[in-house]
């Protein structure tokens, strides 16, 4: 099957029901997408499917055919940060950083949908993304900064 990831189309030969997470990580080497729980409990594997945040551990490869798949590595790069990534760097959010790919993808989808999220909106959108290191206060602040910067842009 053909999968379009971060603007590049790849031919992959995998089972229909292989979770996109493992296609991305093990078949395509896109390891910015993280495995944390495999059962939609942590959000570390969050990507965008046609702009919507989804858990790639719960998305079948076959269901992503024809869709625009965006990973953290396609959102922005170290030299060309997305506004959400820039806000994350500004607030020095990460500790171990393992959850942050998913946190950032979740936040970017939230802001694309809702440019001025309230505290409740942020809580509701980010509640499914676990951070075992406890960076939540900084995540909250960074989402607000990113929202402000995106509006100013």
């Amino acid at each position, binding site marked *: 099957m053909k999968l379009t990831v971060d603007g590049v189309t790849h031919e992959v030969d*995998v*089972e229909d029901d*292989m*979770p996109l*997470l*493992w296609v991305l*990580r*093990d*078949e395509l*080497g896109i*390891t*910015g*997408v*993280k*495995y*944390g*729980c*495999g*059962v939609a*409990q*942590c959000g*570390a594997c969050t990507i965008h499917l046609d702009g919507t945040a989804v858990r790639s551990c719960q998305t079948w490869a076959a269901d992503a055919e024809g869709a625009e798949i965006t*990973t*953290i*590595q396609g*959102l*922005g790069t*170290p*030299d060309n*940060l997305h506004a959400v*990534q820039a806000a*994350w*760097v500004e607030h*020095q*959010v*990460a*500790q*171990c*950083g*393992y*959850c*942050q*790919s998913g946190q950032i993808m979740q936040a970017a989808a939230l802001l694309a949908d809702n440019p001025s999220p309230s505290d409740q909106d*942020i*809580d509701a959108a*980010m*509640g*499914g*993304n*676990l*951070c*075992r*290191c*406890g*960076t*939540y*206060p*900084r*995540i*909250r602040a960074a989402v607000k900064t990113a929202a402000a910067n995106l509006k100013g842009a």
Partner: protein
Amino acid sequence: MSRLGTITRRGFLVGSVAVAGGIAFGTYTVRKPHANPLSADLAQGEAALTPYVKLTREGITLITPRADKGQGVYHVQAALIAEELDVDLDAVMVDPGMPSPAYWNTALSTEAAEFFVPEAGTMQDLTIGAVNAVMKTAGVQITGGSTTVADQFVKLRAAGASARETLKQAAAVRAGVSASACQTDAGQVILPDGTQVAYTDLIADVAQMRPVQDVPLRDPSTWRYIGKPMQRIDMRAKCTGTQDYGIDAAVDGMLHATVLLNPAQGAGIKSFDGTEALKMRGVRDVVPITGGVGIVADNTWRAFQAAALVEAEWEDSAMPAEMDGHWAALDAAFTEEAQDSRVRDDGDMDAALEAGSAIETEYRAPYLAHAPLEPINAIVRVDDDKVEIWTGTQIPRFTQTNVSRITGIPAENVIIHVLMMGGSFGHRLEDDVVRQATEIAMQMKGTPVKLTYSREMDMTHDYTRQIAMARARGTVADGKVESFDLGIAMPSVITSQMGRQGLPASGPDSQIVAGAFEQPFAIPNHRVTGYRAAPLAPLSSWRSVGASTNGFFYNAALDELIHAAGTDPLEERLRLASDDVTRKTLEAVGEMADWSGPMGNGKGRGIAFTKSFGVPTAEIVEVTATEDGIKIDKVWVAAEVGTVVDPVNFENLVQGGVIFALGHAMNCEITYTDGVADQDNYYSFEGMRLPQCPEIMVRGLENGDRVLGIGEPPVPPAAPALAGAIFAATGTRLREMPFNKFVDFV
């Protein structure tokens, strides 16, 4: 962008000594001399100035040997070197280097002590066997301090200074001027006439020189990095998905594996049948390993799927069948025969209790998983005469020894690449995953095998935090706490952990009473007794180790005595405080929160104080009792660390520690049925999520004279401060964690 973000990736993929080629500087001659580990791998035109600074034509590399589990120590170590070396942090490369005796406090015993009680300072000195004698002193002095941080704090700056002066000397000799007339800035030596000579142009010169030693360190008032908010060097990579962790590493020709272990942790396997699994697409082999089966495939998911098809017959667990049995073992340990230590014994407790006790209470704390978000993993390739390992670990040198024993290949031929860790909290002080990957790789020589645990395997086969129980009594008079008797029972974490490394353990275990026996409170009659319960589930160090349970027991019981005395929990702690830094820490947190007694309106506040790892830490938690349950609104933290190296990272770590502790206190426990953990993923072991996260105000105090680490100290006081707040808001006393057994949280 800084080149730092890419350095670890290079270390992962190159797969050989990441520092290969270069000059390397150090203070190692001030201690026992060790061969400079960088020298062996220097290529032509490269130089190693100390084990911490390497110059190559590509630039300057700072070696930061302490493993980074997410707490930013790569960054802190680099900043300490740069402070004296005069380089800009965004213009150098950083590399963890290879495990080497030069990077440890020279002796294995120190690594061992660090391993059992990570960064424990005073407690670290209390290795089993010597515990009684040292504890007597420590119990009185309580000077504490994390020797690891303190040690690095001086050593790395000294390495930077030595390298700088050596470079100056080299430039001066070449130009025929005096070294003292030269300056340094941004990776350059500046000659008296203003000519700039890049450090990297001096490689050939310094390679011939003995490093300048014993250079005086700069005055704190001139520091450029220390104490200032820093941009962590790994931040961009971690925010762009370009930071490679162990689980992301790849080696040519690598296969993916997972393990199926006896669901009852530690019990063996009788037989297995891999026929069905072998029929699955991509599955290469199903092989026996100690206590289970290794499943090897061409993709991690295929290995996970195949593992579910392996049929196995397992041996029975030696653990009690039900949790009641575990608690009964703790209950049975409160005896004279099981007494492990009684280092704190002020006044005359027996006499004080003759007329009866104001409280007779019992407290419990459950087993807990570490559950860092990155499941454990390792790549191992076994060749005929050599083993190569890629993994995120806190114990590389133990692992070298263990793998050498398993393979029969000498330890010097066991090469280990320490990779970035997606959290640890103590989880990566164990090396089962490497041992198992080695057993699999031995059965497919020459092929690198990447073993990844599923989350379920990771959680159910974690070596958990100790289960523990405490009993308290005491007396009050005239609105004062007069006596406080605390007994704590738990199995020995240290014995369990040491046992898995084949090391003997004798004598009392300091962790059974850590966070209680050494608390700086002058209560006229005060006794803390440790009781050692029989081994139950295998245990390991969990963020703040013994203090993670004992900080709760101590503060919760003290609160009940203070309540019986009819006085204020902050005021009474202040009155009892036996030293100045403790008093200042308590005053600071009270001032931050504007503490002024009961609040009303369904709101309540609790305060707790624990000195652990040498760091006096006071926390206040504020909650509201809503119709749907307890809402945690705010937390204030004051912690005394001597010097705050990076205020931003400091705040992040303290907030994280509080969230970690509150989350587990709210809703986490591991329970065992027939030796099998009942919780296997985050839906049953959740911790705190963002919507529940309170506002957390942090203040780092610098009244002490030692530089101390902050990774663990925020943990112990959080749970008891929450319990105190819930009591103030609702009148319900919580004596057992997790609290959601008794109250709801919103």
